[in-house]
């Protein structure tokens, strides 16, 4: 077959840099081991309060990952993911405090409830785009805390008072405190979700999600069922953010409507943008950012932490317009170029 005969050896093509060779296997294995070590080390290094903060950062990273699926990879802007976070948290809290369930079996329930809810929200989302979708999801985030307070379900949700629950103890007599075990639980659950999403994004489905975002008409012409893809992306995204909510409920040992104001949705959005839109690793950095930067801001100025936070945020967006993920990509490209 010689279809390509006679095609011009375009001079412009010579200017396109060749991609670097793939990372060698030993380097990848080393990176994975390094990552594992970095994930486990804090158990032995950090004392209780800082370990708790890191646990929350991992949980926020997972919630940001959820948002990244629908907004980053699929291009559907959601300013309402705090609602799924809240629903996940309440599922776990209600099952644990009213029905004496242990933590683990509440996870699949809250995942299923949030996936169902996300699927439901995904349908109107098909008819809305851009700013309209953003505002529709935003209204969900505004409504949820008030629904949680409502009298008719007060017996379940504990109304304004919220619900108390207790962290699980380490199983099999492991010599870990409940804070240490909680950190490990968050790392295991989040790690599993990150791995599954990593696989998904590299599959034909992941490609279809991005194709739909890049050019919907062309995506349909390639045989992609946009309606099905978008609603399922919403369901998956809500499910992952909901699982993060479940983890947060048990890590904090308390849920109340006021912990889930619409601010949570904005926080997740900030985490996604700062970490890197449509980046899995970026979600991790986003989680660390939204948890630790407010603390840093407060350490700098007790009087006006919001101002400091704003300045840090603007600096980040200015210096890293494509997020942490973009910075990592540039560093990696430089290292490869030299090697």
């Amino acid at each position, binding site marked *: 077959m010689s279809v390509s*005969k006679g095609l011009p050896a375009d001079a412009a093509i010579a200017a396109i840099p060749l991609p670097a060779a793939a990372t060698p296997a030993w380097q990848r294995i080393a990176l994975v081991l390094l990552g594992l070590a970095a994930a486990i080390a804090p158990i032995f290094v950090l004392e209780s309060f800082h370990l708790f903060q890191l646990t929350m950062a991992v949980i926020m990273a997972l919630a940001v990952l959820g948002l990244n699926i629908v907004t980053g990879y699929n291009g559907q802007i959601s300013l309402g993911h705090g609602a799924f976070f809240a629903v996940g948290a309440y599922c776990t809290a209600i099952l644990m405090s009213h029905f004496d369930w242990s933590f683990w079996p509440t996870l699949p329930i809250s995942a299923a409830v949030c996936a169902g809810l996300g699927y439901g929200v995904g349908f109107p989302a098909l008819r809305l785009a851009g700013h309209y979708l953003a505002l529709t999801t935003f209204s969900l985030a505004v409504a949820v805390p008030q629904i949680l307070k409502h009298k008719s379900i007060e017996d379940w949700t504990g109304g304004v008072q919220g619900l108390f629950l207790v962290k699980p103890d380490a199983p099999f007599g492991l010599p870990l405190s409940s804070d240490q075990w909680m950190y490990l639980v968050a790392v295991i659950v989040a790690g599993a979700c990150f791995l599954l999403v990593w696989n998904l994004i590299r599959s034909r489905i992941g490609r279809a999600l991005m194709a739909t975002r890049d050019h919907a008409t062309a995506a349909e012409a*390639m045989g992609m069922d946009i309606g099905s893809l978008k609603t399922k992306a919403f369901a998956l995204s809500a499910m992952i953010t909901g699982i993060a909510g479940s983890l947060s409920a048990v890590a904090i040992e308390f849920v109340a409507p006021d912990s889930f104001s619409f601010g949570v949705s904005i926080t997740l959005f900030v985490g996604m943008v700062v970490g890197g839109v449509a980046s899995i690793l970026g979600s991790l950095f986003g989680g660390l950012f939204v948890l630790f930067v407010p603390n840093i801001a407060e350490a700098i100025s007790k009087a006006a932490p919001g101002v400091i936070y704003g300045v840090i945020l603007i600096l980040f967006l200015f210096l890293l317009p494509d997020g942490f993920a973009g910075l990592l990509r540039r560093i990696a490209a430089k290292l490869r170029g030299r090697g």
Partner: protein
Amino acid sequence: MPLLEVQDIVIRFGGVTAVAGVSFEVAERQICGLIGPNGAGKTTTFNCISGIYRPNSGRIVFAGQEITGLPRHRMTGLGIGRTFQNLALFRSMTVRENVLAGAHSSGRTGFVASAFALPQVRREAAQASRRADELLALLNLERVADAPVTALPFGWQKRVEMARALISQPKLLLLDEPAGGLNHGEVDDLAGLLVDIRRNFDLSILLVEHHMSLVMRVSDKVAVLDFGKKIADGTPEQVRADPAVITAYLGAGDGHAHAA
């Protein structure tokens, strides 16, 4: 039996009748040109076949099956591939990823299987990747396979679209003005490419095109539209000599066959 039968389709936008009862056929392994002056209804007819518009009346039959009004995403699976007039590539992706996206319809694995990277997912991915490599080689895109698609010059991006359409192994390839924006040399290459593709992939091509010399050179058959009606249909020679075609292109009373 022809591969594609367009039977008396009518498409109206509000009060305007864009296509007023057009019929034509494309046989297996045939290259069919669809031409006509601006506003003749070519692109509207084309969009009807690819499922973007639904005709107000009339039928479109592909390989013996009526496809009128089927959802757009079903078309590739049935064997109808297409390219776009103004490039419609996935801009965040590399050349290879764009081509792989074209293989979507030959995959079956969904969200769950993909997340768990089941063996079936790996098998499908390996198969798609092999076919992508073949097409990249065939269209001389190997060297830029892992470059971002937006880094390529226009003419090269058009070839990426062609590879993306071909990877789904279509029986009918719909090309919307493939020569648009190409220079002389590139149009010559395109003509050779189309003939080669038909031979190697065993498919039919429906070509909507303004570039008259390209259409006349590669088509087995040409259908001419004017004001939403078909005014001629035949071999390039027949069409070139048809008085109605000459009138449509040059206006009444001017007898020179510039249309050719």
